[in-house]
């Protein structure tokens, strides 16, 4: 029961943050993908940097097994293909599966259309999974692979290094990009 309540609280905070940074505005997402305004990309990179450093520093103190890490498998072909398909939808509609829920909460009607499209997409996916998707996802499957394993370095060090690089890049990048 308690995890459900934690998740609900995290969801409310996440929804409010997404709304405040205007990531639930599809026009803002389109401006970010056209690289005219980088605020949402900088928001995401900051989130990742702070989250990675904090999660792995906590893990260094209390032990990784006391945390609820859940690494998704690296099946290279399926993950890349999924990302490429996702990107087309992201650029076309300006929503992702979470921001359209936030947008619906805000009262955006096009967010409801994106949600409906998502439900229909999930329906077709369940029909095609066994015959089409599962074989693709068996290709180049490296399992639960993390950067610290690839580099052969301690996870907390890699998290701090990656976080520092993300924060450095974000700090140097402009938010509003002048069109040349």
């Amino acid at each position: 029961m308690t995890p459900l309540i934690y998740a609900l609280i995290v969801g409310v905070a996440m929804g409010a943050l997404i709304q405040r940074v205007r990531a639930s505005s599809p026009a803002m997402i389109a401006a970010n993908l056209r690289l005219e305004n980088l605020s949402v990309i900088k928001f995401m990179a900051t989130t990742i940097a702070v989250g990675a450093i904090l999660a792995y520093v906590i893990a260094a103190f209390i032990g990784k097994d006391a945390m609820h890490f859940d690494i998704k498998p690296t099946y290279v072909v399926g993950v890349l293909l999924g990302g490429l398909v996702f990107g087309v939808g992201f650029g076309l509609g300006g929503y992702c599966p979470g921001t359209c829920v936030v947008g619906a909460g805000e009262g955006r009607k096009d967010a409801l259309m994106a949600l409906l499209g998502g439900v229909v997409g999930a329906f077709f996916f369940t029909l095609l999974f066994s015959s089409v998707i599962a074989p693709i996802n068996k290709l180049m499957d490296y399992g639960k692979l993390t950067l610290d394993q690839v580099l052969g370095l301690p996870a907390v060090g890699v998290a701090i290094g990656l976080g520092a690089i993300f924060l450095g890049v974000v700090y140097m990048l402009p938010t509003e990009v002048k069109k040349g």
Partner: protein
Amino acid sequence: MAHSATQAPPVAAASSSPIPGWAKFGAIFGVVSALSILTWGPIGVSGTYPRFIGAVFRRLTPGLAHANPYLEKMGSLIKPETFLVIGLLIGGFLAAKLSGDKAQGAEYIHTGETSTAKRYRDAFLGGFLIVFGSRIAGGCTSGHIISGITQLSVSGLIFAAGVFATGIATAKLMHKGAK
């Protein structure tokens, strides 16, 4: 005296210049995301879509639902992730209400969208592709990009590279003819 008085406000404004929204909200979200991993698990949204399909099918045609390996694999809707998604709806509603933001019903996002119908078409097709794509990959912006890279997973980096490659190309192509 008058001279220094006119100069004072800009100086004071500069020294108390607020942290940009993306930095402030990004830092808070980073803390929330780490606490999420500490308390129950990494954030992720897209798996709730097929779990919702599964819940509907188990009510309508239980036989068909149990015969579908993907719906069986994804399991019940009674999961933290479902409550996360409900939270997103509440969070979006509350933040808009408390800040007084009036969201537009349909926001045109590129030059191809000249009517509400065309905007709805793009939102629907976009919604279809983002969920279909994220289910192929096993996660979306939250599960793969935010939580994935936060946990240093290689899959998150590969997914992000794919998303931004076609995302940037599509958004630019759809905006042809803009000044």
